[in-house]
């Protein structure tokens, strides 16, 4: 039996291979030049900002040393008493942690709604006017480039101490971050359903609802859940500037050198984030599973 593909004579093969190499040369050159520029930029950045490896290696031991200082002395003989002493403020901390999670929840929800509304206006494939896309994108950029903690500080000055400025700060930042991610998802959708709905006489809102939304919803949910998780961390430091939650006790413990309190509060935050991670993962799999069952 002859081979499935009769091989061409060598000279003909070489000519064809050369033609293909020529046609793809520009692309390969771009990748190569881009790679070199990237390495150069990394070296330049490290040099000009004085990121020095020697300084890092000389002082790296200090970092675990601080953590080592926060570890409480717990002996097996008096185990429960030691742990109880270490976690002396557990009731208050759990209440503050609960505040933090509520701040996160409200802030993420409001931010996700904001990002949802704005993302369609920021998608170049759905909006004809470049001006609208430009303005929306810059707005989203402003929302996410100003750090949450700075927003929180400004809102504390405006609304006074408490959880409200924390919620507003997280909502604003989340609008910016999710709006951009959502818009990118929308720009990657398949254009055929969009054409189908436009050709049937749909207006812009109908195109968004019936052609775009069904394609993007599952991605929106995963990004929003990821953001919720990130925001727990963000909300944990809101208290640093008096915007509510566990942060106010954490910063106090750090400033006043209550070492064991620092480790206790950090541990509670880590456990909370882990639990939220496990729960959101379940929720996400559930939603994806429902999608593929159909």
């Amino acid at each position, binding site marked *: 039996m002859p081979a499935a593909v009769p091989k*061409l004579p060598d000279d003909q093969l070489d000519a064809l291979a050369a033609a*293909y190499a020529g046609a793809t040369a520009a692309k390969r050159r771009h990748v190569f030049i881009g790679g070199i520029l990237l390495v150069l930029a990394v070296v330049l950045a490290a040099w000009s900002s004085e990121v020095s490896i020697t300084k890092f290696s000389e002082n790296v031991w200090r970092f675990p040393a601080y953590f080592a200082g926060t570890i409480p002395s717990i002996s097996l003989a008096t185990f429960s008493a030691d742990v109880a002493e270490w976690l002396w403020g557990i009731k208050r901390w759990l209440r503050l942690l609960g505040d933090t999670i509520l701040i996160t929840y409200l802030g993420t929800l409001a931010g996700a709604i904001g990002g949802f509304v704005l993302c369609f206006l920021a998608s170049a494939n759905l909006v004809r006017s470049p001006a609208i896309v430009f303005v929306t994108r810059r707005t989203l950029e402003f929302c996410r480039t100003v750090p949450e903690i700075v927003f929180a500080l400004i809102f504390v000055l405006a609304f006074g101490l408490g959880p409200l400025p924390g919620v507003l700060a997280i909502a604003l930042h989340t609008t910016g971050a999710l709006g951009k991610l959502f818009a990118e998802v929308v720009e990657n959708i398949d254009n055929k359903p969009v054409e189908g709905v436009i050709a049937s006489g749909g207006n812009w809102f109908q195109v968004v609802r019936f052609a775009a939304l069904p394609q993007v919803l599952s991605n929106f949910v995963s990004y929003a859940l990821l953001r919720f998780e990130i925001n727990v961390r963000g909300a944990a430091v809101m208290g640093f500037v008096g915007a509510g939650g566990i942060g106010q006790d954490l910063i106090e413990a750090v400033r006043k050198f209550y070492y064991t309190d620092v480790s206790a509060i950090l541990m509670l935050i880590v456990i909370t984030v882990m639990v939220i991670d496990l729960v959101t993962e379940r929720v996400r799999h559930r939603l994806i599973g429902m999608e593929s069952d159909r």
Partner: protein
Amino acid sequence: MLQVEGLTCRFGAKTAVDQATFSVERGGFIGVIGRSGAGKSTLLRSINRLVEPSEGRVMFEGIDVTALKGNDLRRWRARSAMIFQQFNLVGRLDVLSNVLMGRLAEVSTWRSLLQIWPDKDKAIAISALEQFDMMAVAAQRADSLSGGQQQRVAIARALVQEPDVILADEPIASLDPRNTRIVMDALLRINKHFGITVICNLHSLDLARTYCDRLLGMSAGRIVFDGVPAALTDRIARELYDLEAGEVMGTSPEQGIDGVAVPALGAAMA
């Protein structure tokens, strides 16, 4: 020789393929016909093991295909090349890279990931593409090609797998009449010149009769007809296709619009 013994595929409560048993001699051109939803696609996909059969066996020249795992399974998939209705190319890769996908089972993983293809494999891919006059577009993205061109790229990808069997799942269902001819002729040429077995799902009875030397008729997951095209009488065809019979048996629209009765309202839903 490919032997399918009591092959059954269930998805939940639905049985897509029900106790399919047949064997195919090397070098045959087999057409699988039947209504949409009769289980033709699932049958081909379970031979390639894209779908896990629930029961039964597929044997190929003494190998139990249904028991293969890991490397052996991948090698079998390369030997039983699939061709799809929607071509299933990677739209963002260029045409030659798409054809080189057919060499993945042979090339080491690190070489393929770095796209450093051995000269031998490149030569095979280029030869296959040139055979279909497609080297001129080798550097273009696959999604920039027309449907007919994409299907030719897909056939080239199947060929460089150096397959023993080609499993074509409605390869011409999204093509115009001219490209239908090109693709079916290519399959026939591969079958006759290289002795590669072709098993081809077809919706059109006319094409099946023209190209295949044996037909398998499927209905509700079961194989209900197995024989040469001449043995497929109009009566059997009508049973196979039920209401769709007229449509698939070659009454093309050009044969006279006058003769077509306006279907009653609601007939489309039947």
